[in-house]
């Protein structure tokens, strides 16, 4: 059986169930790299120029960890999934950059997704990808339809049932979720954590921000729990138009949660990320303007010590608890 390696980084969090369905339908096996570790960051970081952002360094580390375990590595180029809205340049050049940085990697399967070029071009791209596994066009068509159905189901689980991406992936694959879905009744505080899924759900990069909050009995909301239409209209409200593919994860989710009844919003961004630095600023200004919800930005880079993150999280939660206590004292 042909083995297709999928790095557990970047777009993995948004599309893994879809990709896996596609490859399995075509008789291949999807192999996912293990969870991020310090070794991956060290090895990945050594292959690329120093200015490369942390998530890409980690991506290269994941590719390195797949060498020897698979026949192909799948690195799609998601250029645009919405008309006149484009992805960050690091995503556009990812497969080319990987080829240059990791010459010993198995052949890279690439597919260019750009909806601006029309449906036909997209179908042709899917067909070209499928041809690596089968000569029959109808099988490729069936596999891509099944994959799309999986994607819709996956997205529904998050936006309608409040699952996070790792939880929904576990559900789609039928593996048991490590943490139970039942929230303890005494969770009184809700925090929205916004940012790219490859930062929020990678416990190595994020220093376990979400598990730490949950441990402190806080209910955590993330961008993927909102429907795409909600996210997009929130971006439109703030910006007037949607420019970046990933804009809804930060500007959309940020705007929505700042106006909702959450007790606080935490934005997680990677140091050196161009789009993030612009989008974070939009939300920070919005938080200042609205004055309704406490907001904190956490910038993460490879040198960030856990202590710095813990201190800020503690101070942020303390601020919210003291505020709640003061409100109780005034009212009651």
């Amino acid at each position, binding site marked *: 059986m042909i083995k297709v390696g999928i790095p557990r980084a970047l777009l993995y969090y948004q599309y893994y169930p879809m990709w896996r369905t596609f490859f399995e339908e075509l008789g291949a096996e999807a192999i996912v790299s293990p969870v991020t570790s*310090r*070794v991956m960051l060290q090895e990945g970081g050594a292959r690329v120029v120093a200015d490369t952002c942390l998530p890409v360094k980690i991506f290269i580390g994941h590719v390195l960890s797949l060498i020897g375990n698979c026949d192909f590595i799948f690195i799609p180029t998601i250029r645009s999934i919405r008309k006149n809205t484009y992805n960050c340049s690091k995503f556009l050049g990812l497969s080319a950059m990987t080829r240059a940085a990791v010459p010993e990697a198995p052949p890279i399967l690439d597919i260019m997704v750009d909806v601006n070029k029309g449906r036909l071009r997209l179908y042709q791209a899917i067909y070209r990808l499928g041809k690596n596994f089968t000569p029959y066009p109808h099988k490729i068509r069936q596999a891509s339809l099944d994959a799309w159905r999986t994607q819709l189901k996956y997205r529904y689980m998050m936006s309608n049932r409040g699952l996070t991406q790792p939880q929904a992936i576990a559900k789609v694959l039928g593996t048991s979720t490590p943490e139970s879905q039942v929230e303890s009744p005494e969770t009184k505080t809700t925090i929205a954590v916004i940012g790219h899924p490859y930062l929020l759900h990678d416990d*190595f990069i994020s220093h376990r921000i979400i598990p730490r909050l949950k441990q402190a009995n806080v209910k955590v909301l993330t961008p993927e729990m909102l429907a795409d239409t909600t996210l997009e209209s929130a971006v439109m409200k703030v910006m007037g138009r949607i420019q970046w593919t990933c804009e809804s994860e930060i500007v959309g989710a940020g705007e929505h949660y700042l106006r909702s009844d959450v007790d606080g919003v935490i934005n997680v961004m990677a140091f050196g990320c161009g789009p993030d630095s612009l989008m974070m600023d939009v939300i920070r200004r919005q938080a200042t303007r609205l004055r309704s919800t406490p907001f904190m930005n956490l910038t993460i880079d490879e040198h960030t010590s856990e202590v710095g993150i813990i201190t800020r999280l503690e101070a942020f939660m303390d601020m919210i608890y003291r505020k709640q206590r003061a409100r109780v004292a005034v009212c009651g």
Partner: protein
Amino acid sequence: MEAYLGIDVGSVTTKLAVLNKDAELMAALYLPTQGKPITTVQEGLRQISEQLPKDLEIRGAGTTGSARYLAGVIVGADLVRNEITTHAVATLQYIPDVQTIFEIGGQDSKIIIIRDGIITDFAMNTVCAAGTGSFLDHQALRLNMSIEELSQRAMESQKPVRIAGRCTVFAESDMIHKQQMGYRIEDILYGLCQALVRNYLNNVGLGKEINPPIVFQGGVAFNRAIVKAFQEELNTEIIVLPHHEVMGAIGTALVVHEEMSAGQRESQFKEFSISDLEYHTSSFECKACPNLCEIAQLSQNDQVLARWGGRCDRWERSPESSRH
């Protein structure tokens, strides 16, 4: 006589404060950490106990600062609290209507925004140390000057020179350049203070609503030239409290006081005599997974008191968990 102890172990200095039951300051201490938090805390306890009456009973102890967990284990702290909360609580005790707190320490700086006596926003510096005390320390060292002298000379400036304060490295080359051009050292030094203030306001204070009353605290508030530069930049009065350098410790003692009097708990404080005990720290690399975490451990007489530094809880051990 009952009292409450707060200890703030920062990167550069360690601060201790003891409050009586009416939250009045009985004793305070400010000493350099010198990279040895454990012995500094022990030494601090020894020194402060000499200032205190013999019949004093510590009803609660707390720690804050970057070494708060380590210090907490050593003294038997009843609570360990972050620096933001403790600084704000202390300032509110003295200036109840404070709206903005600037705190500049050795390696980090913070801004705390307070409205109606409640923290509503805060920020701490990120990777950059250009707006902190170590920036000034470094420049004073280079000019072969004590930090006190730097402050004094800067106050004599008549026509400050503009120094690029974006980064310590650039500021240094800019200063050297200005020195070589023949500008007066006083003017360069005050220019440096202005650069630090600009850097602080543009980094830590970015997007924050800075309203008076503004209270400035932390070690750098000793520097009158910085206070003056803040006043000129913001065109408003900057309040520097008498015990501005120990506010973190005072705030910790206040929080301990508040929580211990409410909860009727017995304090875990291990007495001032812990200054005679021998503590050892060591570290090792955990090889259980590819993360290769560096685990630090604190032990006393071959008994491990605490371990931390892991990404999972395989090695985590705090005094609470070992007690069961």
